[in-house]
């Protein structure tokens, strides 16, 4: 392999670049990214950066020295031609490759009722965060946040601490319900309420109110929520449109085998939010978290450099954390609907506790609330139990 192109210049792309060099690849390396900025850490965008506690320099993504790569900034990939083995950029430049890493990430999803108007934000990029921050500093008093997943919950916490009146809205009955389930969703709900966030759950948004500038949100039950700032955090869409005519299989992202090699192509791998791969234990999944972007970038690099048929399977135990108010939420493993929840350390109303998800006498996941010191122990426990799960256990 003499040349590798990496499309996507955020965490997964840079991780792949660094891993390729670390693993001895000394050929030509090009990295394409559509943002003009230096790469940055996304997790602080809804937290320390939005709060103003951390400045831009503090969220720069640290990149190893001596990568010797051609880095094309502000360059968008337009198409992939697998027969010519080249990536066409939107400005018609063409990049030839022997190996390709697809790390184009995902973008904030905009629901049907979404409208571009002053005061309406999604939060995915640093430009999003800067715009929201400026708006809040200038004139926001009342914020409506639609979507109580990670971004919505963290943004609610941050803006509440900045003194905004916050209403958190979700079509589900509880925050983080799809990830954490009923009981822990209830813990999250009480956390928001204890900090004075108004909550409207189990009701969908019908429309945004306002003309040039947003004035509020209308819910399906007829309620009007007044707001001079609306943050929409209802999930993401993988950035795969540029691959539409490539022949690659798309299945909620770039469909990959267990080693993160793209199906239907040779020497093409994917990593990060855009990669939907066949996890040996969980089946096909796509993971949108920090540590996965790093580890999967490395896995994609390994796969490109491996001898044919020798690429190792990528089988991590998923992990995420979330900071909300002064609380740290961490989940190790992958719970499924129907797993039984059991509190194993502390209690649900204590300042810290650990609860585990169980199925068939195995621990499928551990949820740690303000219990960072227990991460290593629970990770080991989940890993040894996960090793016993069979492939295809999750559809």
């Amino acid at each position, binding site marked *: 392999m003499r040349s590798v192109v990496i499309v996507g210049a955020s965490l997964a792309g840079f*991780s792949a670049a*660094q891993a390729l060099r670390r693993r001895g690849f000394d050929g030509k390396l090009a990295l394409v990214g559509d943002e003009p900025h230096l790469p940055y850490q996304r997790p602080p965008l809804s937290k320390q950066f939005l709060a103003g506690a951390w400045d831009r320099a503090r969220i720069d993504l640290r990149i190893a020295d001596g990568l010797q790569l051609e880095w094309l900034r502000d360059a968008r990939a337009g198409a992939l031609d697998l027969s010519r083995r080249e990536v066409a950029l939107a400005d018609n430049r063409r990049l030839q490759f022997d190996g390709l890493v697809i790390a184009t990430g995902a973008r904030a999803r905009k629901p049907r009722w979404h409208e571009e108007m002053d005061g309406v934000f999604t939060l995915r990029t640093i430009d999003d965060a800067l715009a929201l921050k400026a708006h809040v500093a200038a004139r926001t008093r009342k914020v409506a946040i639609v979507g109580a997943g990670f971004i919505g919950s963290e943004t609610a916490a941050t803006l509440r601490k900045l003194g905004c009146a916050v209403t958190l809205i979700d079509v589900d009955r509880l925050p983080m319900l799809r990830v954490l389930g009923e009981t822990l969703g209830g813990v999250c709900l009480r956390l928001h309420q204890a900090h004075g966030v108004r909550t409207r759950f189990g009701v969908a948004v019908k429309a945004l109110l306002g003309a040039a500038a947003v004035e509020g949100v209308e819910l399906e039950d007829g309620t009007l929520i007044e707001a001079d700032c609306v943050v929409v955090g209802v999930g993401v869409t993988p950035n795969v449109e540029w691959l539409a005519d490539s022949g690659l299989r798309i299945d909620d992202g770039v469909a990959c085998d267990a080693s993160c090699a793209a199906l239907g192509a040779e020497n093409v791998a994917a990593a990060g939010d855009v990669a939907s791969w066949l996890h040996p234990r969980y089946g096909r999944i796509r993971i949108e978290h920090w540590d996965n972007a790093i580890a999967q970038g490395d896995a994609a690099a390994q796969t490109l450099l491996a001898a044919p048929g020798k690429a190792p399977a990528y089988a991590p135990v998923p992990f995420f954390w979330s900071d909300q108010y002064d609380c740290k939420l961490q989940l190790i493993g992958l719970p499924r609907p129907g797993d039984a929840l059991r509190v194993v350390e502390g209690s649900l109303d204590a300042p810290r506790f650990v609860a585990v998800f169980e199925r068939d006498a195995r621990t499928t996941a551990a949820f740690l609330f303000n219990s960072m010191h227990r991460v290593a122990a629970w990770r080991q426990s989940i890993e040894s139990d996960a090793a016993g799960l069979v492939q295809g256990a999750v559809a």
Partner: protein
Amino acid sequence: MKVVVNFDVCMGNAQCMLAAPEVFEVREDGFLYVLQEEPPEALRAKVENAARLCPTQAITIEK
């Protein structure tokens, strides 16, 4: 090898503790403790992995 932690940005996520428990420990108070500031070379790969995985890039390896 010298391990330097920027405690201003450390958020106690304990990723480093997973990667190199010989060197990093997050204790019950939620704070990170560096158990060996100059770990032996044998631990270099683990410590480098810890630095890579740190979500806030709080860990630097000197030399």
